[in-house]
């Protein structure tokens, strides 16, 4: 057991090996490859538990590193390092990935690409571990790009569907914008400090010049915002819902999108050195939390509701980071991973049972799908922040931290959490209350899908009580419950849950009622304020127009013109020269003889010619 804590590299090596093994053995093992693949998240989970026990027992887990790049007086090392933050991330990633894989056995049972799916999940698990256990920003960046690539591959899992392929490209390109920021931040830190490993970098972060620290922190924050789908780089996440639902649960709710929060927490000293960057992060987080929550109100696709909810909750985490409370942000990350993965898997179960993602075609599922309904409600209450579920504790701490650092942002977050309670109640009522509005008969999912739901529901119910332990694990101290904040936020949650239940009382799709109250705002919310369309017309269309112009002129005319011109010239020369090829052997012989005679005469006359011209002697 302790071996895992000291050899955390296994969480990267084993999943990568398994990804290959799964891909190779898929034909032989058939559906059983899923159980082979589960060794990957299991190794991560065991390492997380082992590392947690070691750290809680006052022992430092082993670490290692090797020289990766060495050139002209600079050297970049790669290695692994395990501390409390890493242990927490490994626990979250391992648990969610394991549950998602178990769930997928049922959800993807009919899928022709079963083997590819599980191989990619293994690859993702290993990449995420690489991101987490890296002992420096260089290693983190590799894992960062690898999870992005896995995300691309899994969003586009059904790549024959044009929407899925387009969503994959959109996710890849949008996060790439953030990744450029991250890379520039890395380069800046490299120039200023000359090292990228945390052990060297973080202690000297406080001595950076204020301007440098601000620019570096902002660039790192841009990377985090791209990965964590914060405004204005959030547009890829709702589209990413084209991927299989368990993938959404794992990558686009619990782990990869939380990597941005992890990154900021990891390099916290850099942000600590720059109050300006903290303010930006706080503003972005609070704004995103509220804006995404309003959009989630008006979505009719159950997965889109959860997608905007994820963006909103990540906004909460960013706001907490901006308020300087990175430990609280990590606490919310952990609880959010549990209940949002639960909600996504629950929506997967619903989609599996009804064959639709459209809330308008659901309803009355509580009777048909009791296990899904109960676990969904637990997840919803946790999201809304009802005590004593996990979301209550972490959201309470986030609200308190933000409120006490910046009341305006705090008020925004209170509003966002009110909307959170409302939109999740709306989704719950539309899906599970009233009578069924779709066609066919919805059915409960099998045990292989129910078990992960129950496990995650249990975690989502009790994880909040681990807040103190998590704080200690991360090197902080356990926070007391802030009674005023708790009372206010619980009150808000209860009131808005009741309001939601009232509006959608019979589970009828009564959006028309809300619609008439919101008036012209309703379709605007449905279109997510048209930001997507704005990006399409302001950025995407000019870029594609410019690129097609480049293609038509520079590529087709200049480059292809040069290449084709060369070919044309050779062709014409050949046309002229080929007339000498008579195909008559005696013509060739005559040329040989003529050439010989000319050379012979020249060789005799040479001295005389040279002497006549006057060069040499």
């Amino acid at each position, binding site marked *: 057991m302790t071996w895992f804590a000291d050899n955390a590299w296994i969480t990267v090596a084993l999943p990568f090996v398994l990804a290959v093994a799964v891909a190779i053995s898929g034909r032989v093992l058939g559906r059983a490859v899923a159980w082979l693949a589960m060794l990957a998240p299991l190794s991560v989970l065991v390492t997380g538990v082992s590392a947690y026990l070691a750290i809680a027992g006052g022992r430092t887990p082993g670490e290692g590193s090797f020289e990766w790049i060495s050139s002209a007086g600079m050297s970049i090392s790669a290695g692994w390092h395990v501390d409390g933050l890493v242990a927490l991330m490994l626990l979250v990633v391992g648990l969610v990935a394991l549950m998602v894989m178990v769930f997928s056995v049922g959800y993807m049972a009919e899928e022709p690409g079963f083997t590819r799916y599980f191989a990619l999940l293994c690859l993702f698990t290993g990449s995420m571990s690489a991101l987490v256990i890296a002992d420096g920003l260089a290693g983190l960046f590799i894992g960062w790009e690898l999870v992005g690539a896995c995300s691309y591959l899994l969003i586009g899992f059904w790549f024959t569907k044009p929407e899925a392929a387009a969503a994959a490209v959109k996710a890849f390109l949008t996060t790439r914008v953030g990744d450029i920021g991250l890379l520039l931040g890395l380069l800046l830190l490299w120039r200023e400090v000359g090292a990228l490993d945390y052990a060297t970098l973080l202690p000297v972060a406080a001595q950076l010049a204020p301007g440098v620290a601000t620019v570096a922190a902002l660039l790192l924050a841009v990377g985090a915002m791209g990965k964590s789908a914060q405004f204005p780089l959030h547009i890829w996440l709702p589209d990413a819902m084209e991927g299989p639902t368990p993938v959404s649960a794992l990558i686009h709710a619990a782990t990869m999108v939380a990597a941005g929060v992890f990154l900021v927490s990891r390099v916290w000293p850099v942000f600590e050195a720059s109050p300006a960057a903290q303010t930006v992060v706080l503003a972005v987080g609070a704004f995103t939390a509220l804006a995404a929550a309003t959009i989630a109100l008006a979505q009719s696709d159950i997965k889109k509701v959860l997608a905007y909810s994820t963006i909103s909750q990540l906004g909460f985490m960013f706001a907490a980071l901006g308020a300087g409370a990175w430990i609280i942000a990590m606490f919310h990350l952990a609880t959010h991973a549990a209940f949002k993965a639960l909600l996504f898997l629950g929506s997967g179960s619903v989609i599996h049972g009804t064959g639709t993602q459209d809330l308008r075609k659901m309803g009355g599922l509580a009777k048909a799908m009791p296990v899904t309904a109960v676990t969904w409600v637990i997840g919803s209450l946790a999201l809304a922040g009802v005590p004593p579920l996990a979301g209550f504790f972490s959201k309470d701490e986030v609200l308190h931290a933000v409120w006490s650092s910046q009341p305006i942002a705090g008020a925004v977050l209170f509003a966002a959490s009110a909307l959170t309670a409302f939109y999740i109640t709306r989704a719950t009522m539309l899906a599970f209350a009233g009578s069924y509005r779709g066609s066919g008969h919805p059915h409960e999912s099998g045990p292989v899908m129910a078990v992960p739901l129950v496990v995650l529901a249990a975690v989502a119910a009790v994880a909040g009580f681990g807040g103190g332990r998590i704080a200690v694990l991360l090197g902080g101290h356990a926070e007391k419950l802030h009674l005023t904040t708790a009372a206010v936020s619980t009150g808000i949650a209860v009131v808005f849950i009741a309001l939601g239940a009232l509006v959608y009382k019979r589970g009828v799709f009564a959006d028309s009622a809300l619609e008439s109250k919101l008036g012209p705002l309703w379709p605007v919310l449905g279109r997510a304020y048209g930001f997507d369309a704005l990006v399409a017309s302001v950025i995407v269309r000019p870029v594609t127009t410019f690129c097609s112009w480049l293609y038509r002129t520079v590529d087709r005319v200049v480059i292809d013109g040069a290449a084709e011109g060369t070919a044309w010239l050779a062709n014409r020369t050949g046309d002229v*020269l*080929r*007339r*000498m*090829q*008579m*195909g*008559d*052997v*005696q013509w060739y*012989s*005559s040329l040989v*003889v003529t050439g010989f005679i000319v050379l012979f005469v020249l060789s005799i006359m040479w001295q005389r010619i040279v002497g006549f011209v006057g060069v040499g002697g």
Partner: protein
Amino acid sequence: MNFIVVTMVLFSLALYGVLTRRDIVGVLASIEMMLGSATLLFVGLSRTTTVATTITPDPTHTGAIALILMVTAAAGAAVGLALLVALARKTARTRTDEITEVKG
């Protein structure tokens, strides 16, 4: 040194034949004639010590070269005629102006 003039005349006539004869048998015969002229040159040289010593220390060596040339000519003629027979059987062509596959 009259034999050198004889070989030069012989070689030139043979070259003219190689370049102008249109039937392959004639071309082959002309080539044999070229080799024959070269052989004759070496035979003549072996009798003429003054020139021969500039080529090889022992004049009898040039006689050996002449023998080798005769064997080579015989082998070449055998191969050339065999090719000619194979070509005639396969394509029924025996004239150089009929064989123009590599014309550009």
